[in-house]
Structure formats: C-alpha cells, structure tokens
C-alpha cells in the first residue's frame, strides 16, 4: 500500500462572493506516493502546486469543493486526528521569515513540542537530538533576527523534524534563498530522505540540482497532471513540450540536443547531473573536439576567438586600469559613485572606496554572495542610503526608479489601476504633455471598464522620454491587462514584479534599478522578464539589477559587477567572467568546460555546436 494515495481528486476554490469557482484548481488527480519517495512538483505559477500540497495537510486545507479522496496511510486526510496530522505531516512554507513564530531559535524549535503537550524532559531530549544532527549549537540561543535566510529556513525545518514526521511537504522552500544556502538546504533534505526514509514532496522551479536524486517528478499544468514518471524517463517524455522543457536540467537539455546529431547517445541513460553529463560527452569525445575546433578554423570571428581577444583585452585593461579611473572616466555617466564608504555599524564596513559609473544604455547586473552588500550598493546608488564618505553624482535631470526585493511594499492602493494613476500623477508627465487633468477626470478614469481604461485618451496621449510605447502598448507588452482591477496583493509574485516595473516606467524613469527581480520566478516568467528587460534596454532605458541567477545574467546582461570583500572585484562582460571562473559559473559552462571553455549559455552552445 502506498503512503499517500490520490484517488480521482478534484478541487475548486470558492470565489470571494462565496460561490464556487468554475475553474478547477486541481482536476482529477490520480497519484501514488510510496514510503520514502522523493517527489518533485513542477509547473508554472498558478498551476496548483500549492493547492495540491495544502490539501495534504488537514490544518491548511483551503475552503472549497473537493471530490475524490486523498488517503494517508489508508485514512482519509480529513479523518486524521489533530495530533497525528500535526506530527506526521510537516509543511514548510516559502518565506522563511513569516513562518517563524517566536524570537529565539531554541524557543522556535520547542514550539511544536510544547503544542503537542510533551513533558519538559522529553522536549529537551528531542531538541538536543535535532540540534546535534543539524549542528546548529552555535545559533541555538540567538535571536532569529540575527540569522541569515538560509539559517532561518533550516530552523524552520528543524522545527518540523522534532515532531518526527513521516512526510515533509516543502512548498518552494528555496525560492527565497541564495544558491549556496539552497545547496545546503537541499543536501540536508536529501540526507533526511536517504538516511531516515522520510518521504519528501517538494515543489521548486529551479530543478537543476534536485533532479539527480528524485524518485518521481510530477509536472502539473492548469490543475492537471501532465507528466508523472521517474527522473530519467520524464526527461525524454517532455523534450517537445513547450512549457515543461524549460524545467529540465541544463545537462539534460544539452544531451537532448546532442543526441539528435549523435545517435550513439540515445542508448545511454539520460544524464541528470553534471557528472553523468560529462560521462556522456566523453563517449563522443573525438566528435566534440572536432566540432569545437572545426568551428574555430572555419569561422575566424566565432565566439572562441572573441573570447581570446577579450581575454587579452581583459588583461590589458587590468594594467591600464589606473589610468582609466583617474583620467578617462566617462564624462557622460548617468550616475557616478566616487570613493564610497558605507557601514551600518562602525566596526563593520560594508563598502570600501567603491568607484562606479553607470552609463547610458547599460544593462548591468550585480552578483556576489549573500550579505556582500548588493542591496546596500543599490540603495546607495539611488540615494536611499547616504554614504558615510564619498559622493554619488547624478547627471542633471536623471530620473531613477527603484524596485525593492519585495514588490509588495510598493503598493498602497486598492487596485492596480490606482497604483498606475498614482505613478503617472507623481511623474509630472501630465504637465509636460499639457494634459488637462483634474479630480473629475481622475474619478472618471476610475469608473471606466478595464478595456476603456487601457484605451483612454488621457493616458494614451502621454509620451515617455525613454520608451516608445503608448500606455496601452505598455500594458499589453507586459501582459497585465487582466490585472487592472485586482488588488495588488492578490497577484502572484511575478505579476507583482511586472506591476512595479510598469509603475516605475510610468514615472518616466531613465534608470531602472531592480533588486533581485528573478527571485522566486518560474522559468517561463523568468524568460518573459528577460525579454521585457532586453527590449526596454533596446528602447534606451538603463537597467541595473542584482541577481543570484547566473544563467539569467549570462544570457541577458552586457556588463556584470562582482562584489567581493567590500569592493567591486570584477567589472566585465558576464560571459568573460563566467568563462574564466571554475566554480562560480553557469551549469552549461561546467558541463562543456573541457571542450569549449568560453561558452556559458545554452544558446551560444547550440550555435557553436550547430545544434537546433
């Protein structure tokens, strides 16, 4: 008997007026999960991953109509008694911050044990055991505010594990963590699964590092299970699927493209990790050498040469870097930082003597480990924080728009429409375009229907300085016409991100400063965001963003800053940076380093090796 059984399970939410929603959030789900399985849930935002997970937890079951049943250990979920449901099924949420209830680590770990009424002695035994296993002795008596995001999520996991659950439901647990913290978290989850046979059901967008050890992948789309199979098989099944192809590990994507040309690969097992992938490449070693070199000889201006020249250029630049700083810094820079020092506390300098020029039309990304001061750098640049020493100079008249890590804090109105109007009023665009605007016209705009609002003359007569779009085109370009009347909080993370960017553009900004816009986005939204940013840049907008997503950076940015040890360590084309790095680089680069070390993105690799 399976541990968890979905039998023809369907679920639909209630609408806000209490009626039943017509669209089913989950549609006839049939799924069996065995003891000790590691299951990965994938699918675009809003496909029902969270709904599926919450339906497995009695306490979190959303209100709505369900048919069919879910059995846990042979009992229906609804019939589980309170205690065993709380203990046997652990649920971890996305945001590490919001699920912490108490203020010290030990108290947080003790919290569930106190809830189920264990005697003090037993509580202390269980805490000591879990603390030893996780090795978190050092932070046990710390205040939770002092922890990093990764540590917080670890504490949250501990707090579930003290209850000795049989199943862990993890709802995008790593979406808010940086890559290093993610690896750490993942390796612990894997250990729990392998060494204690705890069943894990995890939803996640960036599946590259999870795929190698899952037993089952479930691909959801619009509430239906599209594909379900083990990791090796599912990779070959979804090759041609437009959506789910994006969820496969890069290694598998490379293998799939290669195997069209090299049929010998098809006989091998689909590789899931870099290790397996390199082994596959080894079997066609000679061919690869040939196409890698061949392209070189064949086409002199190919990217390989470009790389060599750029490498040379790089070293030359290094020798002449002093001249560059003191004499030939770009006079036309939009923003120029000179000798910036910054610290929150006296003892702890975060930035030390940083110089930086932001030029017109740049698409710059800022990378670096957690806590290295990326957000601080951005906030200094836009003037939210004042440097302790040094000066930030702005070109006269430059308008900045800053998007915080958490888009939610940009919203203060009841619906998106008013948010947009607020930005327009603030932007002074109405004056510049000599539009007659009064309170009456404002109220009229509020009463218009969605389509009328988007097409209204007042808004469409506005001309932005940097982008060619009219208001209507802008809304349609971002694909947010349907959201106009929604409350901003009801939109998904990706949608909120888009709304804030539109708000920034409506303020007629020249420079768009984004803090971690790729955080928590599914691959498709991430692609869409990349397209949007690229075409905005082509329109003449200057963009500066921080990111942990190296693939995103390599694919889109033209200039990349790496912060390290309180200064900008590297300032170069991201492709050059990643090609030279060995560890801090993209999956593609790690995979093909032996053959074409200069390739860091999948698209480049495809054109290089002439794959489709």
């Amino acid at each position, binding site marked *: 008997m399976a541990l968890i059984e979905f039998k023809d399970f369907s679920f639909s939410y209630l609408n806000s007026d209490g009626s039943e929603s017509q669209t089913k959030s989950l549609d006839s789900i049939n799924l069996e999960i065995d003891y000790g399985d590691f299951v990965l849930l994938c699918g675009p935002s809003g496909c029902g991953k969270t709904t599926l997970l919450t339906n497995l*937890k009695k*306490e*979190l079951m959303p209100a709505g109509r369900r048919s069919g049943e879910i059995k846990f250990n042979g009992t229906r979920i609804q019939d589980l008694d*309170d*205690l065993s449901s*709380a*203990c046997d099924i*652990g*649920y971890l*949420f996305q*945001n590490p*911050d*919001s*699920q*912490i*209830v*108490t*203020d010290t680590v030990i*108290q947080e770990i*003790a*919290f569930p*044990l*106190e*809830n*189920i*009424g264990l005697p*003090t*002695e037993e*509580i*202390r035994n269980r*805490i000591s055991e879990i603390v030893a296993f996780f090795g978190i002795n050092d932070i046990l008596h710390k205040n*939770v*505010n002092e922890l990093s995001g990764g540590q917080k999520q670890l504490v949250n996991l501990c707090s579930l594990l003290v*209850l000795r659950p049989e199943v862990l439901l993890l709802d995008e647990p790593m979406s808010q963590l940086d890559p290093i913290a993610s690896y750490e978290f993942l390796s612990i989850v894997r250990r729990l699964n392998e060494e204690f046979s705890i069943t894990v059901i995890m939803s996640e967008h960036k599946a590259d590092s999870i795929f190698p050890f899952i037993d089952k992948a479930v691909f959801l789309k619009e509430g239906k299970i599209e594909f379900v199979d083990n990791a090796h098989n599912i990779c070959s099944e979804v090759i041609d699927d437009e959506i789910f192809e994006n969820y496969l590990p890069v290694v598998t994507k490379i293998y799939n493209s290669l195997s069209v040309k090299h049929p010998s690969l098809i006989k091998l097992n689909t590789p899931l990790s870099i290790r397996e992938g390199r082994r596959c490449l080894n079997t066609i070693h000679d061919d690869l050498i040939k196409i890698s070199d061949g392209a070189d000889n064949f086409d002199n201006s190919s990217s390989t040469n470009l790389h060599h020249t750029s490498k040379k250029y790089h070293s030359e630049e290094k020798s002449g870097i002093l001249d560059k700083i003191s004499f030939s810094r770009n006079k036309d820079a939009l923003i120029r930082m000179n000798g910036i020092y910054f610290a929150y506390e006296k003892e702890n300098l975060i930035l030390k003597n940083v110089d930086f020029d932001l030029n017109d039309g740049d698409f710059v990304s800022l990378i670096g480990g957690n806590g290295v001061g990326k957000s601080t750098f951005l906030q200094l640049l836009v*003037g*939210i*924080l004042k440097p302790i020493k040094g000066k930030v*100079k*702005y070109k*006269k*008249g*430059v308008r*900045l728009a*800053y998007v*915080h890590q*958490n888009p939610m*804090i*940009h*919203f*203060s*109105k*009841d619906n998106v429409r008013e948010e947009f109007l607020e930005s327009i009023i*603030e932007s*002074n665009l*109405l*004056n510049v375009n000599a539009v007659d*605007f009064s*309170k009456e016209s404002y109220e009229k705009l*509020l009463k218009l229907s969605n389509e009328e609002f988007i097409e209204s003359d007042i808004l469409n007569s506005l001309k932005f300085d940097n982008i060619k779009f009219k208001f209507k085109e802008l809304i349609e370009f971002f694909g947010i016409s349907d959201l106009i009347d929604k409350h901003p*909080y009801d939109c998904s993370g990706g949608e909120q991100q888009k709304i804030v960017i539109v708000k920034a553009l409506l303020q007629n900004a020249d420079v768009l400063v984004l803090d971690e816009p790729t955080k928590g986005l599914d691959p498709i939204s991430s692609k869409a965001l990349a397209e949007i940013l690229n075409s905005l840049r082509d329109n003449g907008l200057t963009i500066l963003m921080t990111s942990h997503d190296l693939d995103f950076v390599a694919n889109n940015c033209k200039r990349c800053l790496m912060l390290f040890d309180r200064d900008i360590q590297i300032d170069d084309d991201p492709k050059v940076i990643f090609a030279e790095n060995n560890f801090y680089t993209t999956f593609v680069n790690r995979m093909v380093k032996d053959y074409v070390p200069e390739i860091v993105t999948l698209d480049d690799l495809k054109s290089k090796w002439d794959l489709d």
Partner: protein
Amino acid sequence: MELTSIHPAVYLLYYFIMVLFAFIFSDPYFVVTFLVLILVLISLQGISSELKNIMKLFIPLSILIMILNPLLNRTGAHKIYLWSNFFITYEAIAYGILMSLALLIVILVFSSYNRSVNYQEMLYIFSKKLPIISMIIVMALRFIPLINSRAIEVQKLNNLKVNGIDFDDEESDETDGSVDSKKLDVDEFNSNINTDYNSKFVDKLKSNKRIAAIIKEAKTLGKIMGITVSWSLEESMFTAKSMKARGYNATERTSYLSYKFGNADYALIMLIAITVGIIIVGLLKGVGMINIYPSIDFSFSNLPFNIYYLAFIVFLLPLIYLEIKERVLWRN
C-alpha cells in the same frame, strides 16, 4: 551571573521586597546605604545602555522634584526665609531629596532585576499560571522588531519618493522649484482618504505653511504605517498557518523551560526570611523611618548602629557577594 543559578521565582521575591523597602525606608542612613549598595551591585552587573538612557531622563526629573517640592509645599515647622515673606521649609527640601532618592533606587532595582532575570525566566514564571499571555508575549517579542524593520524599509522607499535625488549643481534647484508649483498633489487623488473638506477653517489652516507641512508629514506617516501594516498582516497569515500546521491548539501547551530549586535557592530564601524578619521587627519599632511632616525628627548624630541596620545591610549583600565570588572564580 553565570556560575550560580538562582530560580527566577526567588529572584522575583527578592527584588519585590527590595522595591517595597525602597518605598518604606525614609531614614537617610538607610536610604543612602541602600543606594550605595545597589550602585555597587549595578556596577558589578554592568550598566546597560537602557539604564544610561533612563538616567538621562531621570536626572533632570529629580532636580525638578527637589526644586518644585519646596516651592509648592509650604507645610513644615522649620521655615527658611529667602526674602521678605517668601519662605520654604526645611521639611519640604528633605522630603524632595528623599523622594527623588527613593525613585532612583527603584529604577536601579528594576535595572538590576533586568540584568539578573532574562525574559525567558520571566516567562517561565508566568507560563505555568498564564500560558496564553506568555505565548502572546513571546510572539510580540518576535513581531515588534519585525514590524519595525519593515517600517524602516518602507520609509526608505518613501524617502526616495519625497526627496528625490539631490543634484549637485545649484541651477537644478531653481528649475525644481518652478516645476513644483505646477506639480499635481498626489494626495488630492486618493480614493482611500476623503479630501472633500471644503470648509473655510480647513482652507485657512492649510494656508499656514507650517500646518500644511505638518499635515503632509502626517499623511506620509499614515501611508508608511498603512503599507507596513498591510504587509505585516499579509505575512502574519502565513505565521498563523505555520502555527496551526505545527499543532498549535491541538492539546494543552507545556513548556520546555525548566529551572530546578537548588541549594543556592534555599540558602538565599533562608537569608531573606531571617533578615526580613528582623527588619520588620525594627520597622514596627520605628527604626528606619522618620517623620518629616509636620516637623522633621532626625539628627545626623543619631547613628543607627543596631541589629536592624545590620540586618538591612546583610539583606542587600548576597548578590554582591555572588558577583564578587564569580569574579574571583573566573580569575582562577
């Protein structure tokens, strides 16, 4: 103290008696002794930054008490004429000084209590009797710093919006000014706030520059608070879910905290019982208290060298002794 553990309930009892004594004793010898010993204790425990802040407030306050009491309170037998028929009384001065000293002692006692008993130990005392309240306290301790840090983030964004960026050259300031006059007021277009107050009074108020500035400030503050609160509410939904998911309310709560009664506790309680017994006997006989009004009955030559005074000193010594002993142990 790291090397001696004293049960929080014992601490609570001890400090509670101290606060009572601070109010009861009025004999200057007792009061000064009390003050000196508590100062020694505090300096051994380490002066916290909170205490420093409180002292900044307290010192002017005590001076105020000392000055105002004689000016407002004319009762007392010993009159001191300052000029013509304006007088203050010796009793009122003495009372003012003793009052502010008593207040100082209470503050110091509380500060020392904070050092001795951390809030977790406090919670332990309450959690047995008032489990819900202690849970709420714990959650508040998590929530208040959180909401504070969120408010700071929101305020940062607001700064950007209000101040914009300051350009270096001075010309831009002028152009900014002219643009400003034409600029639409965002607050006019806000369906959340009713701005249709067209009374003359409001217009008049608004025309005053300072009041207008205050109104604007209040509005921005309201906006910041609004965003912070709705953000926090949104997040607390998850907190609630997470609590529920981890079995909150499933059965009666227990507590992981446990403190055992040890030898040190018994010894301290014995000491408290004996000394307080003696002190109470003394108090009943009138030792340690003086009459101030209507006529002060105290003379400095009347030294309080008796068993009651000794008991009072012994009562105040144990924590000082433990602190010193700890220092010696560390040094070894």
